[in-house]
């Protein structure tokens, strides 16, 4: 299992002629299989931290280690490889490739990994069924609802068995029912597969699902609390395939 360690992370942006601290000496350690929420107001640094953890952005200072690998010193190509093999992303705006069907979107990452067609097909269909989209594999993003699109994005994020899933405001564009169902799905995947989830949000409902809640402000971690976390529907006996968003 892979743990995440951040030490003294700093990131500064220039905006309107003045310097803004996106991350200000952030120290953070996340154990494998944790279900973590980063919360805070807009501009508090949660997305910046998420981007740095995912290798999308490089800190000005400090170290990030995933497992035994320092990622803050990797090249663009190495970072792309790391994201491909170890990290899954779920974004606020669903971000599916519009010219690909739901199945092809899920298969896309596996295609980049060089997995053969039969295995891709089997894994994508299984995962789509797991997130409750059986029968919708051939539909393109424009033919799916917002909730369904986000489920496809989740399926794509987890299909290659990443050690870490980073989700940035995943429920921001969803209605409350779809948001709850998505969080149930995240929790099930966390429990069932042991995937580490780090979710950036300022949605109180999302925070209620997390067992660890990190609050940020002005680029700093202002609190790091452990809480019971909401119990996933699966543990109450409802299979995810039976839920419809």
């Amino acid at each position, binding site marked *: 299992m892979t743990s995440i360690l951040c030490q003294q992370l700093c990131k500064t942006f220039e905006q309107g002629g003045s310097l803004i601290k996106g991350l200000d000496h952030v120290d953070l350690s996340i154990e494998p299989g944790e279900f973590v929420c980063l919360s805070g107001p807009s501009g508090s640094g949660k997305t910046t931290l998420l981007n740095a953890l995912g290798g999308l952005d490089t800190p000005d200072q400090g170290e990030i280690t995933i497992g035994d690998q320092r990622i803050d010193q990797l090249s663009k190509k190495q970072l792309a490889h790391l994201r491909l093999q170890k990290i899954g992303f779920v*974004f606020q705006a669903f971000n599916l490739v519009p010219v690909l069907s739901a199945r092809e979107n899920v298969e896309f990452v596996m295609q980049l990994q060089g997995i053969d067609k039969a295995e891709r097909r089997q894994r994508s269909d299984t995962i789509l069924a797991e997130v409750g989209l059986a029968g919708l594999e051939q539909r393109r993003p424009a033919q799916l609802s917002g909730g369904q699109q986000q489920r496809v994005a989740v399926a794509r994020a987890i299909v290659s068995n990443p050690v870490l899933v980073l989700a940035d405001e995943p429920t921001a564009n969803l209605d409350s029912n779809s948001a709850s169902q998505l969080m149930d799905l995240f929790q099930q995947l966390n429990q069932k597969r042991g995937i580490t989830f780090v979710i950036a949000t300022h949605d109180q409902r999302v925070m209620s699902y997390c067992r660890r809640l990190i609050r940020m402000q002005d680029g700093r971690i202002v609190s790091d609390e452990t809480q019971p976390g909401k119990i996933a529907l699966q543990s109450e006996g409802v299979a995810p395939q039976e839920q419809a968003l």
Partner: protein
Amino acid sequence: MKQLQTLSTLAWRNLWRNYRRTLIMTSAIALGVWAMIFMTAMLRGMMADMITQGVNNLPGHIQLHHPEYRADPSIVNRFAPPGDELLEQLNQADIKSWSARVRVPAVIASERASRGVNLIGVDPAEPLPLDGNLLKDGRSLETESDRGLIMGAKLAERLETRLGKRVVLMSQDPDNNVVDRGFRVVGIFESELSATEENQVYAGRATLQKMLRMDQKISELVILTEEQRLLQPTVERLAQSAPHLEVLPWYELDRFLGTSVETFDGFSMVFIVVIFLALSFGLVNTLVMAIFERTREIGLMQALGMTPASICVQILLEAMMLLLIGLLVGNALVLLSLHSIKDGLDISGVAEGMALMGAGSVLKPALHTLDVIRANGVVLVLGIVACALPAWQASRLDPITTMNHT
């Protein structure tokens, strides 16, 4: 390989996202390629026609003369028929045929008018007895001792003479004495070029040699070769065998024609490049717009683990597919349009002007494989090169910035 397949699928689908734009660009490429190849084929056809006409009128691909003959084409500058060494060279495989001729300036007179002409003595058994001209009325010369005369239709009109009438030809012998002889008009020819019809008359070689008192000597040796344009090795070989004679290929004998052909060669390349430049702006613009519209998506792909090189390859594949479709349609259009005028395009409306350049009134296109490869190659290779910059720029986009792009 698997990744290339994925990138190809993405490129193909992205291409048809904005199908209207793709269709417009494909049509532009197809039209451009059609214009490049079709116009080059027409130019080549015209050049081939000009060369054929030129070779028929000179006549021959190569001519051998006395070194002073071109400056003073009189009987003084005559030479002996080919000896053994030259004959051996004239029997080589690259030489199709040859003929020995007498050509002197003369005055022709009918009972109503007289004119200056080129008097040509030929052996009808040898090639091009009438150069490239067609016998319209009467008969051909039968032997080199034939006593008849063949003249052009326009000359007959000017002299107010006709088939069966007698005319007098007057010239000089080697001692500068005036010699003359009466000939009966046995044939009237037509020529693509009006100047030829007015200025050339044909008689038997032996008859003229006797009239001009030049024994067996001749004015020129006319050679037809298998190759039309690459004549230098043959010219050099013949010059070694006949050091006392001037050996010249058609493009030096007719400088205007030679220069025109060279100019057309260069022009066709300039034409291809100019069309390509016009095309490339549209092509690059299409690609830049396509990238701009997909900026966010490119960021997403990078976030998912696609390398900058793969992004670059995907966009280049898209450009290549666009180019290939355009090339395919363009080449099909070329074949269709050339097939529709395979018997030639009648340009008699501008034939006077074309005749000045030595071309006939029916233009037959000549499609050369090399021209097709060159036009397709220029569009494909330079097209991809032109698209390399936007593709490279797309691969350098920052995923965070691009994913915030709206």
